[in-house]
């Protein structure tokens, strides 16, 4: 026997659960504006998220997928990207989307059953969140191809849950990204559960990061509740892609503190104490502890931030609840650039029927 190939998967954590640094921090960790902005995004998203659930419970929104406990990863992802990059998110990446100028209102609209929530007035290129699991990874690879083809200095970033990594599309995207050295970053939110299926039942892999080995490029595992590790590693991966050095797979270990969606009842399949334990590791508390430690934050600022976030959300809710109904012709008018004959008739029928 000879050795044909060897691989290592690294794990990175900077901040322990108590917010204390485990090792030397990257320089951006002492950039107050940057760090505070990340924190603000997380807190804002949590307020937005809590409200979304409340809206659903009171019948003012459809099924909603919460991001509770996974805000750091998503905030870091959004922050690490540049405006012209393209994001192909799955459905728990509001923190990233919001940083990329998708409005909270649009996200509410989306979950409120209104396609206009995908219009992204201030973001022309990002994909809407993808519902068919795994499929978005290929869209990101395709966009990345376009950047490379046009010699643009742009990167595509896609996110997926650890459950989604069992889908063929995930692997096909990794494989082509590796084969063509595409400027794309794959971020896995390994939140331990795919609805009711635990991480351990999904795959025999020791790490999700090692799935990149099957595609011939680097995979790395990080603590996804550690905002510094997330920002650092995702940032590095994006830089690498932008330099033309190809794709990276980032596995971020988080925990889904919420039900899968508002249609789910996680108590049917998981133990309360698992959730309680996971709460100890959650990112907002941890980030706040760090910021407080280094003197970027205090209770006063926190109080002000809470008020501001609530105000922002209230304003968005106000708008959301008062949105005019979508014109019925919208049902027809966006299937093709030009309306085909059979739709002309049907369109008329709906418009007349609704008079």
């Amino acid at each position, binding site marked *: 026997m000879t050795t044909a190939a060897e691989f290592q998967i690294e794990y990175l954590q900077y901040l322990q659960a108590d917010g204390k640094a485990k090792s030397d921090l990257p320089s951006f960790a002492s950039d107050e504006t940057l760090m505070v902005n990340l924190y603000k995004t997380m807190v804002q998203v949590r307020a937005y998220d809590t409200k979304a659930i409340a809206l659903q419970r009171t019948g003012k929104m*459809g*099924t909603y997928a919460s991001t509770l406990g996974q805000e750091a990863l998503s905030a870091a992802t959004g922050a690490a990207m540049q405006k012209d990059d393209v994001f192909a998110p799955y459905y728990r990446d509001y923190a990233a989307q919001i940083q990329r100028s998708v409005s909270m209102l649009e996200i509410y609209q*989306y*979950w*409120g*059953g*209104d*396609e206009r929530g995908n219009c992204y007035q201030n973001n022309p290129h990002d994909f809407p969140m993808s*519902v*068919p*699991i*795994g499929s978005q990874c290929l869209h990101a690879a395709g966009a990345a191809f376009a950047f490379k083809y046009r010699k643009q200095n742009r990167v595509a970033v896609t996110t997926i849950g650890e*459950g*989604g990594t*069992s*889908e*063929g*599309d995930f692997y096909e995207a990794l494989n082509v990204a590796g084969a063509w050295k595409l400027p794309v970053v794959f971020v896995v939110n390994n939140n331990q559960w*795919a*609805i*009711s*299926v635990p991480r351990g*039942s*999904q*795959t025999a892999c020791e790490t999700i990061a090692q799935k990149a080995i099957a595609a011939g490029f680097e995979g790395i595992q990080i603590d996804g509740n550690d905002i510094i590790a997330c920002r650092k590693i995702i940032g590095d991966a994006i830089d690498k892609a932008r330099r033309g050095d190809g794709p990276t797979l980032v596995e971020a270990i988080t925990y889904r503190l919420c039900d899968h969606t508002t*249609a*789910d009842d996680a108590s*049917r*399949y998981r133990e309360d104490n698992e959730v309680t334990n996971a709460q100890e590791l959650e990112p907002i508390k941890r980030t706040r502890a760090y910021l407080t430690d280094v003197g970027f934050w205090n209770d006063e600022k926190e109080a002000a931030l809470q008020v501001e976030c609530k105000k922002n959300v209230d304003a968005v809710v106000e708008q959301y609840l008062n949105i005019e*109904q*979508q014109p*019925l012709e*919208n*049902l*027809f008018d966006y*299937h093709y650039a030009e309306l085909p004959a*059979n*739709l002309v008739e*049907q369109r008329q*029928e*709906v418009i007349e*029927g*609704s008079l």
Partner: protein
Amino acid sequence: MNELTLVDAVNQAIAHELASDPDVVVFGEDVGKNGGVFRATANLQDRFGENRVFDTPLAESMIAGLSIGMSTQGLKPVAEFQFLGFIYPAFNQIVNHAARMRNRTRGRLHCPIVFRAPFGGGIHAPEHHSESTEALFAHIPGLRVVIPSSPVRAYGLLLAAIRNPDPVIFLEPKRIYRLVKQDVPDNGEALPLDACFVLREGSDVTLVSWGAMMHETLQAANQLSEQGIQADVIDVATIKPLDIDTILNSVEKTGRCVIVHEAARSFGVGAEIAAQIGEKALFSLHAPVQRVTGFDITMPYFKLEKHYMPSVEKIIAAVNHTMEF
């Protein structure tokens, strides 16, 4: 009395077969401990064990492909796709293998699989959770497509589907999963897989539908009856193979037909039924066959979905139009 909803009848049928046939295995995403996102497999893992009822990794082609491998070894997979909108990654395995294995091997291998999936709109679900694309499967030789519209038929048809030695796409109209309860005795009696159900008799017009739309169709028939128009109401139930004779017999009697389905109109199942009526009962027709269906558009997000769905009013209007000839 054993009053069950449609989804409970599904559960009862699966449980019956798990109990009576050790070759039956039940799997899919979240069907185990969670009992399915609609609870169709609730408690089955507890009752029959993790080796009989289990979750798979999240991969639909895998669910179908495994089913094929299992079934050629004599197991009888009852595999769930969480929603019909997520069956497409499995399309290759279903169309190119499950549907063909018996024919390809001249009967040496065959695939006694039930592919279950909740389908249809009207429950305010997110995108991709409200599809009605039964026509895609109906076109594929080697498949059966079955759609129950009541608890009793869900139980009897699902028993039949599980026992059937060929692959069955079993689509469950989730809008009516909990709409009504019926007495569904757990007697193990299957219903035929090649016959429509005549739910109501009348001589003026034939109403043909299936799945959740049966309810609007029956309501329309009741209101029409008050108007003095008596409808034959047919639940197609077994979309493929299609029992066209029951439909033709009715149309020959009534001379008028309205087909109701939720799927997009063009190239839908209604087209085949209308085409066969035109071929085989043309001279019995007093009026053109009408289709009351979804529009030729993607199922809208839920805010506007009601504008997509065929309604009782539209069915009545179509019948009235038909009566004008």
